[in-house]
């Protein structure tokens, strides 16, 4: 009886990791043998391709139209690469947020209703090994979707304007965001009694991160009435399309006076929890403080800028706050994404921890309606 267990010679952490690996293998074998996963992957690939092509085509069409009718100078000197990259990135993130709950939220409730969870629990596996194994399997399955969309992000680089660094950071952040959603899904799955309930709650949680953060930031801003000391800005002549340096169009004069302002920096962390903000803000954009032309800021970079303005608050955005000329473009000095990512990680860690408690055996308390086997 004693000589059979393979614990001699392997350290405890190695044995723990081996158990996680075994659960991952079991999960992936099952996932890779289901046709649905491949069909979803194929649809994903085609959709991303279509979006990339449409973006490229519409950029070409608008270029042609501008050349034919307008006397405007080309607003995008960097080519279609940046635009394709941003549209594809936003699209991939959106669909990753939609796919990840489907891949993760059934991980444990599905086993529970199929009667196979207790089979795992009765072995030498620790609850943590089951939970981590399920999480990594779900994450790997979701990462396959990112890999499928990577060629289109690379096209963004190939068509010019983007550096490989952009693509790498973007893919890395997408992977992290997908991992967070998978952790939320697996944690909720361990807590829920029924598969449908776990999936719905996970989708609602993701919706909370995407839309709920925007709504609560918007409503929360109303509660942040405060003041800021600012002097009078003196604007120069209005020249919207003037290709001057990317700087302020005013000078500051007069005494500092207290003005009402919204202290958005107090609720900016809510905005930071938005997955789009985290990804957009983490990408290292080129420093545009000295660049000409405002229009070349894309949607994703715009999200990053808006988030940073919210975080800077009136002290950083109100013209002539504290008598200082404010830069229109906020540099990379004050990122918001670490705060947001930290909060997201804390949320998923909390749910995983609660899920772990629910998987412990011998089970003491069972949630209503949960059967062990």
């Amino acid at each position, binding site marked *: 009886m004693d000589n*059979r267990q393979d614990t001699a010679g392997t350290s405890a952490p190695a044995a723990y990791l081996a158990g996680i690996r075994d659960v991952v293998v*079991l999960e992936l*074998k099952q996932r890779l043998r*289901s046709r649905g996963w491949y069909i979803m992957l194929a649809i994903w690939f085609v959709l991303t391709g279509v979006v990339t092509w449409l973006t490229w085509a519409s950029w070409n069409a608008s270029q042609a139209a501008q050349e034919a009718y307008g006397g405007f100078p080309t607003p995008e000197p960097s080519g279609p690469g940046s635009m394709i990259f941003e549209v594809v990135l936003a699209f991939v993130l959106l669909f990753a947020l939609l796919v990840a709950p489907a891949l993760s939220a059934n991980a444990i409730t599905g086993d529970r209703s199929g009667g196979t969870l207790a089979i795992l629990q009765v072995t*030498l*596996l620790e609850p943590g090994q089951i939970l981590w194994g399920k999480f990594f399997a779900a994450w790997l399955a979701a990462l396959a979707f990112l890999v499928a969309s990577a060629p289109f992000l690379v096209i963004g680089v190939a068509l010019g304007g983007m550096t490989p660094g952009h693509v790498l950071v973007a893919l890395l952040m997408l992977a992290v965001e997908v991992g967070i959603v998978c952790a939320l899904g697996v944690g909720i799955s361990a807590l829920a009694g029924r598969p449908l309930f776990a999936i719905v709650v996970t989708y609602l949680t993701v919706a909370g991160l995407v839309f709920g953060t925007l709504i609560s930031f918007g409503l929360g801003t109303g509660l942040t009435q405060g003041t800021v000391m600012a002097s009078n800005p003196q604007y120069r002549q209005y020249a919207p399309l003037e290709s001057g340096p990317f700087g302020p169009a005013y000078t500051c004069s007069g005494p500092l006076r207290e003005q009402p302002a919204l202290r958005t920096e107090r609720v900016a962390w809510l905005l930071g929890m938005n997955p789009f903000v985290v990804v957009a803000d983490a990408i290292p954009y080129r420093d545009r403080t000295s660049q000409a032309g405002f229009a070349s800021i894309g949607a994703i970079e715009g999200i990053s800028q808006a988030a940073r303005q919210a975080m800077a608050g009136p002290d950083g955005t109100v013209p002539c706050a504290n008598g200082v000329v404010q830069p229109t473009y906020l540099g990379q000095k004050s990122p918001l994404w670490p705060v947001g990512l930290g909060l997201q990680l804390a949320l998923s860690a909390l749910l995983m921890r609660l899920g772990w408690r629910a998987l412990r*055996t*011998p089970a003491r308390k069972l949630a209503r309606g949960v059967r062990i*086997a």
Partner: protein
Amino acid sequence: MAMISEVPGHPAGPESAGGISARGVSRSFGAVRAVEHMDFHAPAGKVTALIGPNGAGKTTLLLMLASLLAPDEGTISVGGLDPRHDRAEVRKHLGWMPDTLGVWESLTAREILTQMARFYRLPAQGLGGRVSNMLERVRLAGLADQSARVLSRGQQQRLSLARALIHDPSVLLLDEPASGLDPGSRVELRMMLRQLAAEGKAVVVSSHVLSELDEIADGAVFVNKGRTVRQQTTAEAAAAGRRYAVSASDPAALAAKLTELGLVFRRQEGRRPAVTLMLNNDGDAERLLRDLVLAGVGITSFAPATGALEETYMNLEGELQ
């Protein structure tokens, strides 16, 4: 209610190293008290039947014995160890086959057993041979590389048994193992369980199909409404008397002879008319049959009407109402 008697004939009590026992365990789910102060002991080397009607608490007790569910009160001991403190050690000794057949449908039988062996941290070398032997033992070798989805219910049941046995546990807990099996597979299961007990394992079988338990169980624990009602060995159950059914080519002559012998009997109106009567032991049955044959009554059948355990079960049902 306290346990009526310890199973006699086993000098080693529940505190001995072998076997599995529960003392005064209770468990409730919300307001439902599934198990109340239940006592249970299954000695090593014996097949112990856990008998009771649906909803009596059999599965809850087995889940507690399998270390999946913690009792609210009472203690459980597996080979002298408490699952609450020595979970890993206890689980090496426990094999559990649930009543729900959870199988990973897309995996093959061989892969399922290999995965289970890994989860029990069995050494990698010799694993393939061990899995193949186990597949042979439950007669699934021919289907070893088919996905479990295509297996019939009986085959999945056998796979589930193999899954519980892959780490060679010393205590085997089987929850309704025979449900859904055809008669041939039941006979096979019976032989296999006898063999496992002969190897020195404590085998616990829960069922409400009593006729087959008669053939395999050495002892039985009767439970009802969450309580242990009686513990007895099959031998004791047989000694308590058994109802026999007798039919003859001439029922009138049979009735006359039985009346002459002063025996109380009941007419059984069935497809084949017969009489049933209580006999205390095998010797009584032997004498009665001889008397009837010598008296010239044409006996066409003479057999126990119910199994020994069924007799106890039915009597308990009567007592409890």
